[in-house]
């Protein structure tokens, strides 16, 4: 209930009364210059309308009452006494109060209208985002399902004649697509946990050399036919990280390089110490990625020009994990050609 908060905080009252004080000073100055101000009362509308339109009814009423009483006290003869019992003074007070209430009500209506419109816009935007994500997920699920279905039903189709090579091709396709679905499900789970803030890393000092060697070993089948060079100094200090999450980061970066560069393209893994952080780079000798495309690739379900069958989540998740460790992950030009993905982790 933000409106109640507005009413109970004293800030608006203080500001309104300061504005009123300024008005009294102005009225006093005008009076001292000898200018006759029978309608000085109009000047008080300035702080009143200001208070009413900005902070609502409470500050407006207080400003109205204080302005009239103050005027009465300071400027109406006999000075130093209240004359509210006089008809003209009473009428003035009623008019100021009426203005204060009316303005507050109008401003309140306008404010509420704006709030409603803003809420509706936020709901619309987040609905549009959800729809976009849902569409992307269904597309990413449906494509492998469609090729599995086409392959399996093709193999089972009576009357079709498949060579050994064709049969092997279709079976390989089915296996690859099932693996892709599996990666997608894992990535979706990670992404939703990251989103919910539920993937806080449990950090322990880890030897990145060992971690990277293990990942390269595990991914050997996917990296077949490529020269994979690991270039890490022996004295690399340990980093404080969650083994499973950084394993996933390195895995996603390597899979990304394998997916988006032609078979045979070399991949290099480098690590170095940078002040109190360790910097890891995955460099490929592929075609590289134009600067304008780079940040887009880290958004969920954005895919690069190669249209390779990725999950659209690998880089998003890798960045999420690295940032959860207090590090950064970005993409830059490789020294000669290709792309260089770099991430940093705080040293242990």
């Amino acid at each position: 209930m933000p409106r109640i908060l507005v009413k109970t905080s004293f800030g608006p009252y203080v500001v309104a009364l300061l504005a009123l004080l300024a008005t009294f000073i102005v009225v006093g100055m005008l009076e001292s210059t000898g200018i006759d101000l029978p309608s000085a009362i109009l000047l008080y509308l300035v702080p009143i309308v200001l208070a009413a339109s900005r902070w609502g009814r409470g500050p407006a009423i207080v400003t109205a009452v204080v302005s009239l009483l103050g005027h009465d006290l300071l400027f109406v003869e006999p000075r130093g006494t209240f004359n509210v019992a006089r008809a003209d003074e009473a009428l003035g007070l009623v008019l100021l109060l009426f203005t204060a209430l009316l303005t507050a009500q109008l401003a309140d209506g306008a404010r509420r209208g704006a709030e409603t419109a803003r809420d509706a816009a936020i709901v619309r935007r987040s609905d549009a985002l959800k729809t976009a994500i849902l569409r992307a997920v269904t597309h990413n699920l449906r494509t492998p399902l469609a090729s599995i279905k086409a392959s399996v039903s093709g193999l089972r189709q009576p009357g079709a004649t498949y060579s050994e090579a064709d049969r092997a091709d279709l079976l390989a396709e089915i296996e690859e697509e099932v693996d892709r679905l599996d990666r997608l499900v894992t990535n979706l789970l990670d992404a939703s946990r990251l989103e919910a803030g539920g993937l806080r890393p449990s950090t322990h000092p880890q030897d990145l050399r060992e971690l990277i060697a293990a990942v390269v070993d595990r991914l050997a089948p996917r990296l077949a036919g490529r020269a994979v060079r690991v270039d890490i100094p022996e004295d690399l200090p340990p980093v404080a990280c969650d083994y499973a999450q950084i394993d996933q980061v390195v895995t996603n970066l390597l899979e990304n390089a394998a997916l988006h560069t032609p078979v045979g393209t070399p991949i290099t893994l480098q690590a170095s110490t940078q002040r109190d952080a360790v910097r890891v780079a995955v460099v490929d000798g592929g075609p590289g990625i134009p600067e304008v495309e780079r940040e887009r690739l880290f958004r969920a379900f954005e895919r690069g020009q190669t249209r390779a069958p990725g999950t659209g989540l690998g880089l998003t998740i890798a960045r999420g994990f690295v940032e959860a460790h207090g590090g950064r992950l970005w993409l830059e030009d490789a020294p000669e050609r290709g792309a260089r993905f770099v991430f940093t982790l705080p040293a242990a």
Partner: protein
Amino acid sequence: MSGERVLVVDDEPQIRRALRVVLRASGYAVTEVGSGEAALDAAATEPFDLMILDLMLPDVEGVEVCRRLREWSRLPVIVLSAHDEEDIKVRALDEGADDYVSKPFSAPELLARMRSAVRRSSFDSAPAEPVVRAADGEVEIDLARRVVMRAGEEVHLTPTEYDLLRFMASQAGRVITHGHLLRTVFGDGYVDANAVLRVHVASLRKKIEPDPGRPRIILTEPGVGYRLRVD
């Protein structure tokens, strides 16, 4: 084996690979491209008997490919669509696509649609058959004499019902969208009058279907239109 030439247009390499192997095993000669522009180029420079067109392409939308192709070619087109792309699918059919298959599709289903699309396109160049038979010969639509017979007896149709049936018979086997039917039979003012169409189709089914509750001749394509099944 048929040896017909198929142009497969899909931006997903895995789908292309599966289709290539499966269609080749059924005797088709397969050419594959990954974008709409490449599809239009290929269709313009090489002879094909059929195009299989994914609706979600990175460059030119599938619907746009249909529209541009129809400016100069009658190449039969089967679109591949996902379940949440109903509206795009209908637009593609309105722009001249011949049929659609929803993803994920099975190979036999796609192959059946392909055979029927190729068969129809060879009919299209031949003069129209004057008598169309449906429901195992129980129903005969004689387009030359404007007579519809069911089980040997003449069926009395209103002029609108006859126009509807005649148009569907002229497109026998093909999906006809609601919009296409309404424009052709009722005129331009009725393009959104799906309810009107439903009423006429229902009364037509009552007169010619052996079991109007389970239509065998005028089939409903949910969300898209109708298809007249002939023998």
